[in-house]
C-alpha cells in the first residue's frame, strides 16, 4: 500500500465552559499541532455550531486534509454531526475520529493540569489511530414493510392501530387468549372516571377487523433474528381447540364442563370453566379450552363440551401452529406485572381475607366481577364502612427490590376511594400514603375533589396490619402531619401494589438483545430524547415495559413508537453501518468459535473450495467484535477497529515519546 503521508486536522472544543472550565483547550490544540501528520489544529467555543463545522470544511478544502479529529463530547452526541461535516466536504466520513474530552475528561476531573494532560493523551491516541483509518462505504439493504407489535394491551393496541392506519401491514402477537391487557381489567380510569372497557373495547374490535392487522393471540415468540428492516420472527400459537367460525358464543360448552378453575381475569375472585371465554368483550371473541386443565386433554374421556356443542365448534385435533413472520420493525409493548402482595408479609395479603390488592378492587367494583360491582368484605360479604388504602406497596421499597415510584398507584387509589365514596356515602375512607404524587392533567384536581369528598389522607405508612377474630383489620400508624399515633380498626384494606417488569421479559430481552435498566424495565435509547427507541435499531418500545406509566402517557408513547417504526418502514432501503467484521480466509481455519460466540447469527462457517471458512453475513453483523476477539487465528477483524488501528492508539497512550 503506497500512500502519501496523511494530512490531519485537529479541532479541540471548549463546549462553552463544559470543557473549557477544566481543560486548557488552547494548550491541547497547540500540543496537537506538534503531532506527526497534523497540518492544522484549532480550538473553538462550539465545534458543533455552524461556524465550527464550516471551519472544518474550509480546512478540508484549503489544506487538503485527508483525516479529521474532533476532541469534544461523546461520539453518541455529535459523532454523526461531524461525520456528515466531513462527507459534505468530500472526505469519507470514516476518515474521521472523535475524542471525548468532556464526559471522559472535563466532567469527571477537577485538577485542571492533569485534565489537560489527559486531554492531550487522548488527542495523541486519536491522531495515532486516524492515520491508519480506511475509507468505508455504507451498504444498503431492502426494507420489509411490515411491523410486529409484541403485546396486545393498550400500548400494543394503539401502536398497531397507528401503524395499520398508516397503511403498514402489522402483526400483533399476544400471549393471552384475548387482547386488552390490564386496562381491560380496570373498571374505571382516572381522573375522568371513564369506563375503562367502554373506551378500550372499540379499539380492541378495530384490531380484530383491521385489514392491515393480523392478530395472533395465545401465542409466544419463539425466536427472533435479523436486523432493522429485515427481522425474522418465529411465533408459536397454542391450540384453542375451538373453531372460531363455528363458535356462536352460546356457552353450552362451559355450562357442561365439569372443571372449575380460578378466573385469572377476575384475579381468581370468580370461577371459570376449562372451556371459557376470558371476558365478554374478548378479542378474538370465541371460546377456548385450557389444555392444562381440560379433563379430556389431561386424562381423556370427558368431551362433554364437544358432545353438547350445537355447532360442532370443538376440535380436539387442533395442534399448535408455528409461523415465520418477516417484518422490518418491531414494537415491544409487553407491559407490566403487578407486585405480588403476598411478599409483603406484614400486610397479610393471602392470610387476611379482608386485605385485597388494587387490582382485586378493580374486579370487585366491576359489573362483571364476583359481586356484580358490589364492593364487600370478602370474609362475610358485608358492605365495608371503614376502609383503608395503603400506598407504595412494593414501590419505593428497596427491600422489595423496587426503588422507583410506580407512578400510577396514587391516582388509582384516589380513583378507587372516590368510587367507594359514591357507593358508600357515609363510609370512612383513609389513605395511608408516603407522598401523594399527582402530576398529570386533571390529577391534582381529582385528588382535591377526593379530599373534598371527605377521604382522609394520612401521611404515614403503616408498619403492619393485624387481624381480630372478626377479620377486622387493625392498623397503628403515625400521622406525621399531627405527630399523633393513630389506631384504626378497618373493615377492608386495599393495598396499592406497584408495577413490576414481567418475569417473561428476561427471555424476550435476550432474544431481542435489549438492555434493561437497573429497575428491570427495558432501557430506552436515550432517557430524554429517544424514549420510544431501544438500543437496537429497528426495535421500538412503548408502555409500561419501558417504565410504569398511565394510559394517556402510554398511548402517546405508542404514537411515538409507531411514528418511528413507520419512518423506517416507509423507506425502500436502509443504509447499514459499514463497521462490520471481515474474515481473512487465508488465515481462517474454520474452527467455528466465531459462529458459536456471535449473538446475532451474523457469522457462519461454510464449506468452500479452500475448506471450511467463516463468512460474515454483512447485513446481520452489528460490529460488536466478539468474533474478532475470539478468533485464535486473528483471521477476523472489525473494520474501523482493526488490530493495527487499536494497537497504534494503545501504543500512543503508553509511549508518548514514540510519536513525539
Amino acid at each position, binding site marked *: 500500500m503506497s500512500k502519501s503521508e496523511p494530512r490531519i486536522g485537529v479541532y479541540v472544543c471548549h463546549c462553552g465552559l463544559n470543557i473549557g472550565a477544566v481543560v486548557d483547550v488552547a494548550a491541547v490544540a497547540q500540543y496537537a499541532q506538534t503531532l506527526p501528520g497534523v497540518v492544522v489544529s484549532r480550538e473553538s467555543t462550539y465545534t458543533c455550531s455552524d461556524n465550527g463545522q464550516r471551519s472544518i470544511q474550509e480546512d478540508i478544502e484549503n489544506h487538503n486534509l485527508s483525516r479529521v479529529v474532533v476532541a469534544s463530547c461523546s461520539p453518541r452526541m455529535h459523532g454523526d454531526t461531524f461525520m456528515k461535516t466531513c462527507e459534505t466536504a468530500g472526505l469519507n466520513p470514516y476518515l474521521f475520529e472523535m475524542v471525548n474530552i468532556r464526559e471522559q475528561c472535563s466532567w469527571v476531573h477537577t485538577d485542571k493540569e492533569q485534565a489537560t494532560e489527559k486531554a492531550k493523551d487522548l488527542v495523541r491516541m486519536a491522531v495515532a489511530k486516524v492515520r491508519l483509518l480506511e475509507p468505508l462505504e455504507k451498504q444498503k439493504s431492502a426494507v420489509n414493510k411490515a411491523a410486529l407489535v409484541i403485546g396486545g394491551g393498550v400500548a400494543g393496541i394503539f401502536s398497531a392501530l397507528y401503524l395499520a392506519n398508516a397503511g403498514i401491514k402489522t402483526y400483533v402477537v399476544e400471549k393471552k387468549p384475548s387482547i386488552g391487557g390490564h386496562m381491560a381489567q380496570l373498571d374505571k380510569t382516572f381522573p375522568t372516571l371513564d369506563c375503562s372497557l367502554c373506551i378500550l373495547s372499540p379499539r380492541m374490535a378495530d384490531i380484530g377487523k383491521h385489514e392491515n392487522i393480523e392478530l395472533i393471540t395465545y401465542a409466544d415468540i419463539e425466536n427472533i433474528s435479523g436486523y432493522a428492516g429485515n427481522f425474522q420472527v418465529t411465533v408459536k400459537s397454542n391450540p384453542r381447540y375451538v373453531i372460531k367460525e363455528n363458535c356462536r358464543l352460546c356457552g353450552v360448552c362451559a355450562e357442561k364442563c365439569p372443571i372449575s378453575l380460578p378466573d385469572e381475569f377476575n384475579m381468581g375472585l370468580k370461577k371459570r370453566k376449562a372451556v371459557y371465554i376470558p371476558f365478554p368483550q374478548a378479542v378474538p371473541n370465541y371460546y377456548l379450552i385450557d389444555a392444562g386443565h381440560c379433563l379430556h386433554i389431561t386424562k381423556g374421556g370427558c368431551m362433554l363440551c364437544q358432545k353438547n356443542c350445537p355447532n360442532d365448534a370443538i376440535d380436539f385435533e387442533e395442534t399448535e401452529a408455528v409461523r415465520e413472520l418477516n417484518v422490518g420493525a418491531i414494537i415491544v409493548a409487553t407491559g407490566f406485572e403487578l407486585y405480588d402482595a403476598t411478599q409483603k408479609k406484614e400486610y397479610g395479603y393471602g392470610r387476611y381475607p379482608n386485605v385485597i390488592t388494587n387490582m382485586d378492587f378493580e374486579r370487585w367494583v366491576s359489573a362483571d366481577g364476583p359481586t356484580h360491582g358490589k364492593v364487600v368484605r370478602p370474609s362475610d360479604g358485608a358492605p365495608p364502612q371503614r376502609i383503608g388504602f395503603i400506598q407504595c406497596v412494593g414501590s419505593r421499597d428497596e427491600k422489595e427490590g423496587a426503588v422507583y415510584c410506580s407512578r400510577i398507584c396514587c391516582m388509582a387509589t384516589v380513583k378507587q376511594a372516590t368510587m367507594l365514596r359514591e357507593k358508600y356515602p357515609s363510609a370512612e375512607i383513609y389513605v395511608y400514603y408516603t407522598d401523594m404524587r399527582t402530576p398529570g392533567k386533571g390529577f391534582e384536581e381529582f385528588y382535591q375533589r377526593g379530599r373534598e369528598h371527605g377521604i382522609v389522607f394520612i401521611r404515614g405508612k403503616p408498619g403492619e396490619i393485624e387481624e381480630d377474630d372478626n377479620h377486622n383489620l387493625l392498623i397503628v400508624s403515625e*400521622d406525621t402531619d399531627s405527630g399523633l399515633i393513630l389506631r384504626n380498626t378497618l373493615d377492608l384494606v386495599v393495598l396499592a401494589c406497584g408495577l413490576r417488569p414481567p418475569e417473561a421479559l428476561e427471555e424476550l430481552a435476550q432474544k431481542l438483545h435489549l438492555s434493561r435498566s437497573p429497575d428491570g424495565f427495558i432501557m430506552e435509547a436515550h432517557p430524554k430524547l429517544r424514549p420510544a427507541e431501544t438500543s437496537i435499531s429497528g426495535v421500538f418500545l412503548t408502555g409500561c415495559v419501558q417504565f410504569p406509566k398511565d394510559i394517556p402517557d402510554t398511548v402517546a408513547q405508542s404514537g411515538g413508537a409507531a411514528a418511528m417504526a413507520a419512518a423506517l418502514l416507509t423507506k425502500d432501503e436502509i443504509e447499514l453501518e459499514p463497521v462490520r467484521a471481515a474474515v481473512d480466509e487465508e488465515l481462517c481455519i474454520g474452527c467455528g468459535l466465531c459462529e458459536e460466540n456471535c449473538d446475532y447469527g451474523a457469522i457462519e462457517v461454510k464449506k468452500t473450495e479452500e475448506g471450511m471458512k467463516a463468512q460474515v453475513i454483512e447485513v446481520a453483523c452489528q460490529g460488536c467484535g466478539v468474533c474478532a476477539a475470539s478468533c485464535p487465528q486473528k483471521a477476523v477483524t472489525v473494520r474501523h477497529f482493526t488490530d493495527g488501528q487499536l494497537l497504534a492508539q494503545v501504543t500512543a497512550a503508553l509511549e508518548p515519546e514514540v510519536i513525539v
Partner: protein
Amino acid sequence: MKKKEIINMDELDPQFKYEIASQPGGEHILKCVQCATCSSGCPVASVSDRFNPRKIIRMAVLGLKDTVLREDFVWYCAACYTCSERCPQDVRIPDLMAAVRNIAVKEGCIHPAYKEQGRLIGELGRLYEVTEFENEKREKLGLPKVREKNEEIAEIYSCTGVGKVVL
C-alpha cells in the same frame, strides 16, 4: 416518662370535618393539603407553641373534635389573614378558626374573654363602657358626646339566640 397517648380512631368524630365545612367560613377545610404555608407565616405560631393552624386543621380532619373544641388553641388565631392571603388551597384559615369557634360556642366552650366581649356588646352596644367621665373628657377636647348605650344590639341578640350564651 410521660406515656404516649395512642388515639383510637373509632372514638373520634368523623363528622366533625363536615360540621366545620357546613359552617360559614369553614367551607374549604377539606381542601387542606397540610403544606404548612399558614403555620410558616403565622405571627402567633412564630412566638407560641400553643397555636399551629395547620395542626388544628389536621386534628379537625381526623375528627379530634373534643380536643379542638375544649383546648383553647383555636382562640389564639389573631385573624391577621396573613395565611389566608397565601394559602394555595384557599382554605381561609381565620374564617375557618371563626367557624370552629362558632361550633365551640354552641357546644358550650366559649372562651371567657370572648364571652365577656359578647356580654359588653350586648349590654352596652359597644365593647368599652362610656360613662359621663369619658364624655366630659371628650367635651373638654372638643369632641362630640357619644351615646352611652345602644339597645338595638340586645334586640339582635335575642333574634339570634346569642343572648343566652353571653348575657
